[in-house]
């Protein structure tokens, strides 16, 4: 039957990629065993003894771990929310521009940050936010007191979130811009006839029109919550701001390597994956139920 024959092709097309995924993504998962062991490098995985859930009990009692999980969720959630709102607003505003060259220039410039690596951006931002840097100059110009951004637990978290939104808003707006062009023009025309102003049109037509896109991107981002941006934070942080900005991944990196607490680090990593998984299942079900939308 055609079905069976085609299916062989389909499986064959997937095979090489699946093998790679298996080797490089699934096999390392077995290393999670370390989280349940009293791992001693000299003995390796097979030689180290098991200590059940001891590692988990230990980390749950660690005050640092609570702070780290809190930071991760706080930073990630804010990044998601702002990462949704800002591009949407930007797209809506950009959509209102009719002067071609202005629109294109703004777009070109604003898409650029997305393509720069955090290594580069870290250097740029450490200059911009330094005491005598650009931002502080503006603050001083308006008579305010300069702030030591890079060392301040109060502000650094906002910088992390802000710069991440900054990096992605231009590019993120593309999807919304595209979705807007998909909206039936007739809707706008009838709104004109009813005498609706620009703002009303935006609110009652454009916004609902891109609703499904918003939901898609939002739910995809939800599953990514606990990632919170290792590369960004790793290149930008310093010990002075650990308590506000240390996320699970950076904490695991330091604990696992510098302090050679391999078991503990792996346990924290495992907790993270489990929670991520639960979140994405939840968001999938939610999207399905409320928007009738199967993400995959």
């Amino acid at each position, binding site marked *: 039957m055609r079905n069976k024959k085609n299916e062989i092709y389909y499986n064959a097309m997937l095979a090489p990629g699946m093998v790679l995924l298996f080797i490089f993504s699934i096999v390392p998962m077995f290393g999670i065993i370390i989280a349940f062991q009293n791992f001693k490098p000299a003995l390796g995985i097979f030689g180290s003894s098991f200590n059940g859930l001891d590692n988990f009990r230990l980390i749950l009692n660690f005050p640092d771990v609570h702070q780290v999980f809190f930071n991760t969720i706080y930073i990630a959630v804010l990044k998601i929310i702002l990462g949704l709102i800002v591009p949407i607003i930007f797209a809506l505003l950009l959509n209102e*521009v009719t002067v071609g060259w202005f629109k294109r220039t703004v777009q070109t410039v604003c898409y650029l940050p997305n393509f720069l690596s955090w290594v580069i951006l870290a250097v740029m931002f450490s200059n911009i936010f*330094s005491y005598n840097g650009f931002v502080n100059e503006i603050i001083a110009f308006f008579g305010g007191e300069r702030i030591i951004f890079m060392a301040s637990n109060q502000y650094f978290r906002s910088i992390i979130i802000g710069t991440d939104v900054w990096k992605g808003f231009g590019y993120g707006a593309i999807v919304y811009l595209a979705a807007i062009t998909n909206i039936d023009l007739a809707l706008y025309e009838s709104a004109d006839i009813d005498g609706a102003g620009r703002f009303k049109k935006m609110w009652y037509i454009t916004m609902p029109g891109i609703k499904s896109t918003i939901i898609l991107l939002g739910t995809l981002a939800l599953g990514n919550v606990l990632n919170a941006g290792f590369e960004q934070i790793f290149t930008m942080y*310093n010990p002075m701001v650990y308590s506000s900005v240390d996320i699970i991944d950076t904490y695991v990196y330091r604990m696992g390597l510098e302090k050679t607490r391999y078991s503990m680090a792996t346990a924290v990593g495992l907790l993270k994956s489990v929670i991520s998984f639960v979140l994405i299942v939840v968001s999938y079900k939610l999207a399905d139920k409320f928007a009738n939308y199967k993400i995959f």
Partner: protein
Amino acid sequence: MRRKITAFDIVVVIILLFCTLTCLIPLLNTIAISFSDKTSAALGQVYLWPKNFNVTSYREILKEPQFFRSFGNSVMIVLMGGFMNIFFSVVMAFPLSKGTDVFRLRNIYVWIIVFTMLFSGGLIPSFLLIKSLGLMDTYWALTLPSAVPVFSVIMVMNFYKGIPRALEEAAWVDGANPLYILFRIYIPLAMPVIATIALFAFVGHWNAFFGGKIYINTPAKVPLQTYIQSMTAQIDPSKLAAMTPEEQLRQQELSVLTFNAAKVIVSMVPIMLIYPFLQRYFVTGIVLGAVKE
């Protein structure tokens, strides 16, 4: 007929101008620092215009062969990894875009793939694996683990779903097998999406630095961003305090602001060059891959 300019228009323009400025200023600031003198930069006196204009930093870069070696390494990695990503995305998305009526195992595959996107063994098991496979210090270690870009696969899959079934059925009637259908029909139609995921892949590999840190042992093989990161890394102040004065002196000489700024600017050049050209394509591509009717 010219539309009247309303207050709304002005607000829109102001906000958009603000956005554009925030995107430009860090760039201008860094360029300015790279052309300034060491002391002014250290004292934080450089803003949008160089102070005591000089090209010393750029000349220093020319004297550092490793910078160019790393540049070349990154190009290689981008080509290797990029093409692998494109290949796997395009090929794997095809069966996944079929329904379970035609392809029974489809859902299982999808969940496995999504699972790998979320769960990871972590740094240490991945390191152990790469080591035991003998891939340390090779570019395979940097490209194979991420060879299947799940997000791109999903994007292409969505696009394929949107291609009318009629096309495929017509091809079946003519006796075509799935390979033919994929390569002769679907892929040509998917060019915009492919341009998009190609961009994702190339930029992703170009900007990656962490893999190079962990898996590359020979300094000559280090990719560009890893190289820059190793030069601009801030040293832990507590470690600094425990160093002898001689070591502190050495540390100081390593991190000079103007050099770092220059390196950053130079490494951005490829992206700045390619970017305007590709901009046209990726806008269309994202649209087609992500927006549902």
